[in-house]
């Protein structure tokens, strides 16, 4: 039972980690919480679903389409909703309102146009489990864990080794100095949003396959946001640790206490942690910048 719960927790934690990294990536550059990210993940999920069901695309093609689509949407989101605020040097409060507006807009647009139906993905992986000494894990979960790890590792390598990656890390420390050193901030921010969008495509596809596809599935991404805050917003390793930690803890709470209190537990955990450690586990911002 214990090992089983741990494995289930790891599987959901992997997806949380992927989404939390997306949140953190944007936060590290622009220093605001992109609440619109949840709806981008939701749209990524819809893209993958419709690619598979309407276009009959195989799973890998749907995943690629979802990655490209979500990356484009996230990029457009920045250009339409944030770039003019950025040019005006608006405070992070205004960014947040704009992000909230985008989330409300996209979520309800899907409601109004596609409807509140719950769609389930066609079976790609037979719903069989791999069993070993009484511990079972779904094939999809294994695939999700492996693919999430690979994606996060690839992103990590990109940020550490490539020229662009170094520029992104520099911008996360000081975007103005970064610009003085010849980095095109506008292009860089566009790229960061596209990267975050690509992650949203991956996590959206897995989320849709594991659960269902519906307009308010963005609610799950609030958990990813909590995970990012627990790890310390702006810190990518923190986001991974926070995601896995939250996934495992939550699964234990719903297994041993009750699944009703699961969501309340996550939020209480967040508030408690922020009271004790306002920066999260790995964060570096203590309070809002002046």
């Amino acid at each position, binding site marked *: 039972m214990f090992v089983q719960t741990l494995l289930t927790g790891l599987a959901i934690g992997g997806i949380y980690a992927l989404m939390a990294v997306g949140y953190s990536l944007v936060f590290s550059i622009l220093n605001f919480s992109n609440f619109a990210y949840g709806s981008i993940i939701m749209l990524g999920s819809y893209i993958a679903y419709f690619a598979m069901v309407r276009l009959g695309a195989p799973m890998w093609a749907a995943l690629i389409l979802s990655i490209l689509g979500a990356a484009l949407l996230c990029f457009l989101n920045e250009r339409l909703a944030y770039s003019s605020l950025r040019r005006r040097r608006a*405070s992070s409060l205004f960014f947040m*309102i704009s992000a*909230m*507006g985008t989330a*409300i*807009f996209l979520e*309800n647009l899907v409601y109004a146009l596609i409807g509140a139906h719950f769609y389930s993905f066609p079976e790609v992986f037979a719903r069989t489990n791999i069993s070993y000494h009484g511990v079972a894990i779904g094939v999809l979960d294994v695939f999700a864990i492996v693919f999430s790890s690979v994606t996060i590792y690839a992103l990590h390598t990109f940020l550490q080794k490539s020229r662009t990656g170094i520029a992104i890390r520099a911008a996360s420390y000081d975007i103005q100095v970064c610009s003085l050193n010849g980095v095109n901030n506008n292009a860089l921010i566009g790229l960061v949003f596209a990267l975050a969008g690509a992650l949203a495509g991956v996590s959206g596809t897995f989320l849709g396959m594991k659960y269902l596809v519906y307009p308010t599935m963005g609610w799950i991404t609030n958990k990813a946001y909590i995970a990012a805050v627990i790890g310390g917003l702006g810190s990518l390793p923190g986001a991974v640790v926070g995601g896995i930690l939250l996934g495992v803890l939550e699964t234990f709470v719903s297994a041993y206490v009750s699944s009703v209190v699961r969501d309340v537990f996550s*939020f209480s955990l967040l508030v408690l942690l922020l*009271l004790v450690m306002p920066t999260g586990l790995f964060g570096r911002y203590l309070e809002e910048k*002046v």
Partner: protein
Amino acid sequence: MLQYVFGVISLGLIYVIATTGLAVFTGFTGLFSLGHAAFFAIGAYTAAILTYFYGWNFYLALLAGTAAGGLVGFAIGYPTLKAKLRTDYFAIATLGFGEAVRVLLENLPITQGARGLPGIQGDTNLPVLLVASAIVIWAAWNLIHSRHGRAAIAIREDFVAAEMMGVDIFMGRLRSLTFSAACAGLAGGLFAHYFCFIQPSMFTAYMSTQMTAAVVAGGMGSISGPVIATLIFIGIPEALRVANIWRLVAYGLLLVLIMVFRPQGLMGYRELSLDLVRGWFRRPGKGGKP
């Protein structure tokens, strides 16, 4: 027909009471609450349970609902504001709080869970609403023009500078939050006795969103702006009989558009006054626009 018009006005006034409170909090401290529907719900349930099960006098129950909203606001605000959470952390904490209250309302025996409370006495009428909203607007007006209000504005503009000048940031924010939660509680009590039926699913993020959108659209830092915006937000969709779902699409879009094109909102930091109205007619197009 007249009945219908009065109905729309009544609903508008209930929201005006809640939004005025939120305007004092968000507009004058720069913090965002995504859980104001929870204070609304607490006021509604407190007042309704008192008249429904215990046969209390309507006005006393209203006061009790107001007090309950304020108390819970104080209790939530004390730890979160003490910790000086960032704007976005605070927003997500209130989101979690709102969710926790909903789960609680759905599972407590006294609230009768998801079935709700049918057959509450319909004591709320137009004169009561007019008096209540006049009192709330008067109180809010006095509050923001007091020493506290000036301190709150200083906190919103630059909290570091405000703190240097000796403004107690924590107390300023806590007072504003308590006042706004009490207003939401009062609006909740009036709401319950107007519709004669409440259930937990009425107090969702939709309600919080509508209030926040009204404050942002009306202008953060104004009382009359949000009041006008609320009446427009309630009146126009009712008059056009727009489906609920498209209203939310419009609210989301509106938030983004306001942030991009007119972050100061309808009224900006100004109030509706005779001088302002005269200005529109005297110098059309020359700085006299709202």
